[in-house]
C-alpha cells in the first residue's frame, strides 16, 4: 500500500462525532438552528426559478411554503463546502478526481456510468429526502430530539441503501 495523505486514516470518528454533537448543541443555544441541508437545495432552486421562470415560480405551491431566501441553512451548506476545502488544502489532500477508489475497483472507469448514476441518485435522493422531511443531517437533528420521524427515516435510509448497494456491487466488493 502506498503511503500518502490519502491513506492517512483521518480523525477518530468518535471524536469527530462528539465534536459535531457539541457543535449542534452550541448552534441550538446560540441561534436556535439544528443541522439540516436539503431545505437549502430547494431554496437555491427556488431562487434560480424566480429569475429564469418567474411565472412558473409564482404559481408553485411548494416555493410558497419553502421560501427561497438566503437562510442560515444556505450559509451553513456553503460553509460545509468551504470547511472541507480548507481542510483538504491545508493537509494537502485536495485533488480533482471523478472516480472514488471503491467504485473504480469494482465498477470500472466509465464516465457515463458513474456520471449517470450519480445524477439519477441525486434526483431520487432529493425527492426522497424532501418526502421524509430531511436528509441524514436533518434526520440526525430529528433523532437528537428523539422524534419518531428521525428513527423511521434513518432505518429506511439504511434498509433501502443496503439493498441497493448489494444489487449494484453484486458478486461482492473487492
Amino acid at each position, binding site marked *: 500500500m502506498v503511503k500518502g495523505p490519502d491513506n492517512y486514516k483521518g*480523525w477518530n*470518528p*468518535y471524536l*469527530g*462525532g462528539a465534536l*459535531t*454533537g457539541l457543535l449542534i*448543541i452550541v448552534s441550538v*443555544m446560540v441561534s*436556535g*438552528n439544528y443541522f439540516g*441541508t436539503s431545505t437549502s437545495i430547494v431554496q437555491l432552486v427556488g431562487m434560480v*426559478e424566480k429569475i429564469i421562470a418567474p411565472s412558473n415560480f409564482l404559481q*408553485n405551491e*411548494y416555493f410558497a411554503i419553502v421560501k427561497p431566501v438566503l437562510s*442560515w441553512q444556505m450559509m*451553513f*451548506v*456553503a460553509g460545509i*463546502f*468551504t*470547511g*472541507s476545502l*480548507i*481542510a*483538504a488544502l491545508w493537509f494537502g489532500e*485536495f*485533488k480533482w478526481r471523478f472516480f*472514488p477508489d471503491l*467504485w473504480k475497483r469494482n465498477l470500472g472507469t466509465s464516465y457515463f456510468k*458513474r*456520471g449517470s448514476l*450519480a445524477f*439519477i*441518485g*441525486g434526483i*431520487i*435522493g*432529493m*425527492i*426522497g*429526502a424532501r*418526502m*421524509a*422531511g*430531511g436528509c441524514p*443531517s436533518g434526520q*440526525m*437533528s430529528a433523532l*437528537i430530539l*428523539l422524534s*419518531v*420521524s428521525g*428513527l423511521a*427515516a434513518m432505518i*429506511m*435510509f439504511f*434498509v433501502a441503501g443496503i439493498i*441497493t*448497494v448489494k444489487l449494484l456491487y453484486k458478486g461482492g466488493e473487492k
Partner: protein
Amino acid sequence: MNLWLGLVTGILFGFVMQRARVIRYDKQIGALLLKDMTIVKFMFTAILTGMVGIYLLGDFNYLTVTGRPFVIGGAVIGGGLFGLGWALLGYCPGTSWGALGEGRMDAFVGILGLLTGAAIYAEIYPALSPVLNWGNFGNITIPEAIGVNHWFIIIPFVAIGILLFIWFEKKGL
C-alpha cells in the same frame, strides 16, 4: 449575524467531516456494504452527544424540546427513495458539497442531480399530498409515543450505542 453564524458553523462541520473522512464515497458505501462503519460511528456519536445535551438544556428550561412531524407515508416511502438515491450517488446532500470541497467531480454531478430533484419535487408536491398526509402523527417523540420520561429512552440509547461501538471495534468494522 444569523447568516454569518450559519457560515461559521458550516465551516467547522465541513472541516471536521473532511478530517474524519465521512464525506467520502468509500466511507458512505462502505457502511452500506457493512464493511466500514466509520460514518455510523460518527453519526451515532453526534446523535447521542446532541441528544443528552439538548434534553439536559430542556430539563433546565433553557430551551423547549419538541419532536419533528411524523407522517408514515412520507417517512417510509421518502426514506426508501432517499436510501436508493443515496446508494447510487454515494453522498448525501450535505456531504456532496463537502466532497466537492476536496475536488470530487462526481459529487458535483450529484449536486446537479440534487438540484434537478428539488425542482421536480417542487412541481410534483401537490400530487404527493395524499402520500404526505397518510398516517400523520404530528410532532411525536419516542418517549411521548411510549408514555415515559425521556431519560428512560436516552439512557438505553446511549447504552446500546456504546455496546454497538464496542462490537464494531472488536470486529474491526
